[in-house]
C-alpha cells in the first residue's frame, strides 16, 4: 500500500520537530564559539573539556550513575519478586495488592516528592543519595511490575510443571526455566528504570539534600550562565542511557545465543 504524499510530509515534519532540538543541542556542544547563536564558529571539544574538568559535573555524573544503577537493580529484583506473587499466587488479597502496586503510576511525581520529603523529615532520616534512590524506586517500580507481570503471564505454568515432573525442585525450576524466559522482560524493565532515574529531577529535588545529580547540576548551572557547556552536558545525558541500552542488548544477545528461540513461550505449538 502506498501512502498519500501529504501524509508522508506530515509524519516527516513531526519527526523533524521531535528530533531537531536534540540535533541542535548536540551540534552546539561541538561549537568552538562561546555563544549559542549561528553561525557556528568551528569544531571543538573545548566545552566537553571544560565540563569534564568541573568537579561539580563529575560528582553529579557519579551520583546520577550510582542512583540509576541501584534503582535499575533494585526494581529488577523487587519487580520480579512482586510479579511472581501477583501471577503465581492468585487470590483476592493479591489481586487487590496488584491494583495498589499500579496506583503510583497515576500519582504526580511532585506529590510523590513532597510526600516523601514530609515522611523522611518526620522519621528523622537524613536526606542523601539513599533517599533519592528510594524516591526513584517508589516511582518506577509500578512500571517494572507491569512489564514483568505481562511477561510472566505469558509463561505457561505447564512449563514449570514439566520441569518439576522431570526432577527439578522449585528453585532449580525457577533458575533453569522461569528465569531464562523472563530475562528479556526483566532486562528491558531495568533499562527503563535506569533511563527514568538518570534524568529524573522532580522527586530528586525533594529528596536529595546536599548531593547533586546530573539533571540538578544542569538546572543550577543554567541559572548562572548559558554557554555551550550546557550542550556538552546534555549530550552526555543523552549518551549514557544509549550506552546502557547497548550494553543491555549485548548481554541479552549473549543469553539468547546460549539459549536459542527466546520469546516463544508456551512451547512450540506450531503444527
Amino acid at each position, binding site marked *: 500500500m502506498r501512502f498519500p504524499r501529504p501524509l508522508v510530509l506530515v509524519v516527516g515534519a513531526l519527526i523533524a520537530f521531535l528530533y531537531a532540538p536534540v540535533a541542535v543541542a548536540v551540534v552546539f556542544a561541538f561549537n568552538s564559539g562561546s555563544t549559542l547563536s549561528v553561525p557556528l564558529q568551528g569544531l571543538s571539544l573545548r566545552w566537553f573539556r571544560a565540563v569534564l574538568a568541573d568537579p561539580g559535573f563529575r560528582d553529579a555524573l557519579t551520583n546520577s550513575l550510582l542512583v540509576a544503577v541501584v534503582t535499575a537493580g533494585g526494581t529488577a529484583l523487587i519487580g520480579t519478586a512482586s510479579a511472581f506473587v501477583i501471577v503465581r499466587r492468585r487470590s483476592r488479597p493479591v489481586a487487590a495488592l496488584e491494583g495498589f502496586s499500579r496506583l503510583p503510576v497515576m500519582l504526580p511525581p511532585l506529590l510523590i516528592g513532597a510526600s516523601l520529603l514530609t515522611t523522611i523529615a518526620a522519621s528523622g532520616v537524613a536526606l542523601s543519595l539513599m533517599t533519592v534512590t528510594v524516591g526513584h524506586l517508589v516511582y518506577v517500580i509500578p512500571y517494572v511490575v507491569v512489564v514483568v507481570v505481562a511477561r510472566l503471564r505469558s509463561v505457561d505454568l505447564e*512449563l514449570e510443571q*514439566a*520441569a*518439576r*515432573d*522431570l*526432577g527439578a525442585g522449585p528453585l532449580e525450576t525457577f533458575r533453569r526455566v522461569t528465569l*531464562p524466559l523472563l530475562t528479556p522482560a526483566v532486562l528491558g524493565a531495568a533499562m527503563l528504570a535506569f533511563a527514568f532515574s538518570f534524568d529524573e529531577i522532580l522527586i530528586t529535588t525533594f529528596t536529595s539534600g546536599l548531593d547533586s545529580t546530573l539533571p540538578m547540576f544542569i538546572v543550577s548551572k543554567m541559572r548562572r550562565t548559558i554557554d555551550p557547556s550546557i550542550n556538552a552536558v546534555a549530550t552526555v545525558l543523552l549518551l549514557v542511557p544509549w550506552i546502557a541500552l547497548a550494553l543491555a542488548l549485548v548481554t541479552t544477545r549473549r543469553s539468547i545465543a546460549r539459549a536459542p528461540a527466546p520469546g516463544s513461550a508456551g512451547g*512450540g505449538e*506450531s503444527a
Partner: protein
Amino acid sequence: MNASPKEFAESQALASARAESVSVVGVTKRFGSVVALSDVSLSIPEGSFFGLLGPSGCGKTTLLRILAGLERPDGGDVLFNGKSILGTPPERRPFNICFQRYALFPHLTVRENIAFGLTTRGRGRGRRRRQEIAQRVDDMLSLVGLEGLGERSPSQLSGGQAQRVGLSRALINQPRLLLLDEPLSALDRNVRNVMREELLRIQQELGTTFLLVTHDQDEALSMSSEVALMNQGRIEQVADPETLYQRPATLFAARFIGAGSFLAARAHRCEGEHVSVEVAGARFRALDAGVVEGSAATVLLRPEEIRIVTEGESRTSGIVETSAFLGSSYELTITTPLGALRLRSPQPIPPGASIAIGWEETAGICYPSDDSGGRADAT
C-alpha cells in the same frame, strides 16, 4: 467368552498384588464446590498399556495430575509398590508426563529438552556424565525417529515432531509409569494415526507402564490392554476393551462406548444371568445388568447383533430411515414399533424400504433406566 464380574475382580486383585504396581485408593478431590474425583480406586498393572477414558470434565486429567504429584487429593491415597507416595513431591516420583500441548522448553534445543530429566539436581556435571547423556539422547532421538533434529528449537518443529520430543523427554528418565495426558488430541488426524502405532511400538519395546488419558474411545479401545471408564468423578467400569464393548457394566458405559440402539423396556422376571423383558409388546430375554423385576429398564442392542431376516423368523420389522456407507458395509437406522434401531447391512437398502429384522434370543443387555435412559433412541 467374556470374563464374569467375579473373574474380573480376581484378576484385578492379582494385578495389584504384583510388584511395582501403582494403585489409587479411595481418592477424592474437590475444586471449590465441584467434586472432581469421588472415592476413586484403581490399580494399574506393571507393564500394561492402561487407558483412562471419559468425557471431558470427568476427572481423568485430575487423576493423572494427582499421580504425577502436581495436585494433592483431599482424601485417599496413592500407592507405589504398596507404599504411599502422597508426601513425595513430583520431582522425586518415578513417573513422568507427556503433555497434551507438549510443554517443551522454548529456550532450549530439542537435545537440551530431552536431556533435561537427566541433568536435574546437579546430575548433568562431569565430562563422562555429559558423554553418557549425549548417548542416551541419541538413543531417544532414534527411538522416536527424530535423528538429525537435535539442534532445532521447539518452535521449528511440527506438532507430531514436538510430541515425539515430549515423549522422549518423559521417557529418558526411565519412569516406572508414563502418564500420557491426551497426547494425540492436539495433532492432525493423519499424524494422530501414525503416533498411535508409534506409541504402541515404543510401549512394547520398552515395557514401560503407560497410562493413557483420553476422551477418544477409539484411541482407548484400540491401544489399551485395560481401560478404566470414568464419569463425573467416578469409575464406571474397569475392563479389557472387548469386555467394555461387549458387556458395558452400566448404561453410561453402554452409551459412551461404541454405537448401539437403546430401547425403553420393562423388566419382568430375572432368571440367572438373564432377564425377560418386554419392549412395546414384544417379549424377549436379555443379559441382566442389575435390573429390578417389574421396573423400567433400557435394553442395549449393538448394530452387529441385529440381522436382516426373512418374514417368518423376524422379531420385528421397520422402515429404513437412513443408510450410510461405511466402506465394508452400510449402517442403517430404521424405525420399528420397538423404537429406533441401528444395524449393519452388507448391501445398500434404500430409505423407505421395509425390512424384517431379528437378533439372538439373548443378544441384548438390560440396564436399570436412569433419568436420561427412559427414552428409546439410537446413538
